[in-house]
């Protein structure tokens, strides 16, 4: 009947939407249930952390940067510590490095179990969601007993770590790992055999190896497409050279492969933690750090649960950094959502989005785009105010 030009029917997802627990805005143009276009807008959780680091000393920044992400707080602190230690020419003692690895792998377990729950919830499989979050409590309790906090563990210090292992804690970790290992076997069974879940994951959001390379995917998202990319194996940091990691990959590149890769990484994490507990090197926990660091610059890379985390740190001879730049894995992975969403069903979009394990608060950072010949890096208060007025008038 209606022969006029079909109107664009846009379904907005975010910044407030039940599928996203953090603010990000996606616009999906749909034709019926088919997605024909996708765009993303980020920056809702921009907090100016990079700028704020420039007014604080090296120790204070450790805790500020730890708060970039609520899920992978330890890797942020580790990346920062490793970078600053490199600048100061200090090496943390082996026992400290091993404990860093231990906490990082415990954190990976908690992050992947959290993701499993979120992804199951997006698929409408709430029982799996509840089970995986219940089991995640085990690892959260271990982290709480080990470090004294459930989210921002603050296990790192510049030049070492704060907390040592006690025999009781070792027993608690062993017991927790045993329980989690049994449960993870069941999760692998469920995600590879449950018919209704497979209908939502198998062959959905397929990323080929070429696409993964081209889009620059990182972490488990890339490894599910067969890209063997893992900083822990490529450029071992902390104690990863003493406790080598076996990189888990899959070739299918669909959502099922992402489930499987993340779950198999859990087994790898259990193995690593057991190895560390068995062969924990003796010694001190902290090396002495100077308060001021001579002018230099460095980069530091670690493997966060979501992929490669990158820090650039520049010192200027004072007790404060000159510049710190952070690149989080979500930013690398997010572009794939817009590519994969086009042509898929609207119902699969939240699944595809959850499939990269996005973390928006990690991700939102200031980006300056140079266009034309005016200098956009410096705005006067008047210009900024005018920009605000013009922006909201539209």
């Amino acid at each position, binding site marked *: 009947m209606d022969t006029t030009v079909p109107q664009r029917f846009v379904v*907005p997802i975010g910044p407030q939407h039940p599928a996203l627990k953090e603010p990000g805005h996606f616009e999906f143009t749909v034709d019926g249930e088919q997605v024909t276009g996708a765009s993303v807008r980020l920056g809702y959780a921009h907090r100016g952390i990079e700028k704020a680091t420039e007014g604080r000393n090296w120790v204070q920044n450790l805790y500020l940067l730890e708060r970039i992400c609520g899920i992978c707080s330890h890797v942020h602190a580790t990346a920062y510590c490793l970078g600053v230690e490199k600048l100061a020419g200090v090496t943390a003692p082996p026992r400290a490095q091993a404990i860093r690895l231990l906490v990082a792998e415990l954190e990976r377990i908690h992050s992947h179990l959290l993701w499993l729950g979120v992804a*199951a919830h997006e698929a409408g499989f709430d*029982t799996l969601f509840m089970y995986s979050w219940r089991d995640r409590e085990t690892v959260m309790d271990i982290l709480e007993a080990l470090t004294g906090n459930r989210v921002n563990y603050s296990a790192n210090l510049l030049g070492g770590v704060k907390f040592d292992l006690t025999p009781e804690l070792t027993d608690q970790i062993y017991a927790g790992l045993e329980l989690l290992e049994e449960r993870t076997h069941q999760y692998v069974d469920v995600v590879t055999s*449950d018919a*209704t879940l497979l209908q939502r994951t198998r062959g959905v959001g397929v990323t080929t190896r070429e696409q993964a390379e081209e889009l620059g995917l990182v972490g488990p998202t890339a490894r599910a497409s067969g890209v063997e990319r893992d900083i822990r194996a490529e450029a071992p940091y902390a104690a990863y050279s003493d406790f080598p990691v076996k990189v888990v990959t899959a070739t299918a590149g669909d959502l099922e492969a992402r489930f499987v890769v993340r779950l198999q990484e859990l087994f790898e994490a259990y193995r690593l933690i057991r190895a560390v507990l068995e062969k924990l090197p003796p010694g001190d926990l902290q090396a002495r750090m100077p308060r001021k660091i001579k002018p230099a610059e460095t980069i530091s890379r670690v493997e966060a649960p979501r992929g490669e985390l990158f820090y650039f740190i520049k010192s200027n001879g004072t007790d404060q950094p000159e510049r710190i730049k952070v690149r989080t894995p979500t930013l690398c992975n997010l572009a794939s959502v817009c590519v994969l969403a086009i042509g898929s069903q609207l119902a699969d979009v939240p699944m595809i989005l959850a499939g990269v394990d996005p973390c928006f608060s990690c991700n939102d950072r200031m980006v300056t785009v140079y266009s034309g010949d005016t200098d956009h890096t410096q705005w006067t208060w008047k210009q900024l105010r005018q920009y605000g007025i013009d922006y909201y008038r539209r």
Partner: protein
Amino acid sequence: MNAIQDLLTLMFFPGGLFVLALGMSYEWIDRKLMARVQNRVGPRWFQPYADIAKLLVKEEVIPADSNRLLFIALPILALAGALTAALYVPLAGFDPLYSFKGDLIVTLYLLSLLTVCTGLAGANTTDRFSLVGATRTLTQLFSYEAPFLLAMLGPAVAARSWQINEIIADADGQWLLIVQPVGFVVALIGLLGKLEIAPFNAPEAETEIVAGALTEYSGRGLALFRLGRHVELVVGLTMVAAFYMGGVNGLPLFILKTLLLLLILVGIQSLVARLRIDQTVGLWWRWGVLLVLAQWLALVIWEGVQA
């Protein structure tokens, strides 16, 4: 005198308020069982009542670009449909309050009224989530309705009547689910689709389209829709229990059989992921309809041979 008695039966027992209370209690049992399966504590017994009471006292926001009359009338119509349907089924083990030839068909259509109203309510607003939800609700209606109807007609054919109390009288004591297993399964799963619970909750998939067709509803309207849903749960369970599980004579038997069915529903609901709407339609038309049609044909031929 008779008029007052009629009014009392309609308003309080076993129609009206009793059905509403029963519906909310069943909703609580559903939620509690679900929680226990998921290892949670779950809500207290008064939670559904508290939810409805809260919604009823809250402000109702009517979107500016929707038809005001329709927006207000649809929830009332939906609840009225469900409550009317309750009058024709043997609630709580009592005989149906009203009965006439062909009331089976009327009841089934009254039950669909809720879904149609939900779909219309979604289409009445310009909200994107509501529109997508409305499309999905109506698509789903067309997919499960025919098989569900055929599944309900199975016992009717066996009883050679379109009247609910005659069918029940005929099926009394015989567990029809043994001779018509396909019909039973389709009816039960059809009920899942009708109530939009997992795996057929694509029309209100919160991670995709917020609350689906009812996204714009708040306060009173939402309370009425939810009450309608609760009543429909009871009516649907009663019908399946009465038709396929050897009747529901008396309160204890009614409670036992409907709770058994509810337990099965909770089991299905908790162990599956949500189906996409295209998968739902495919499932119903590729399997549901064909299977139930085959059984129906066999039934008709069998009845013909016997006659």
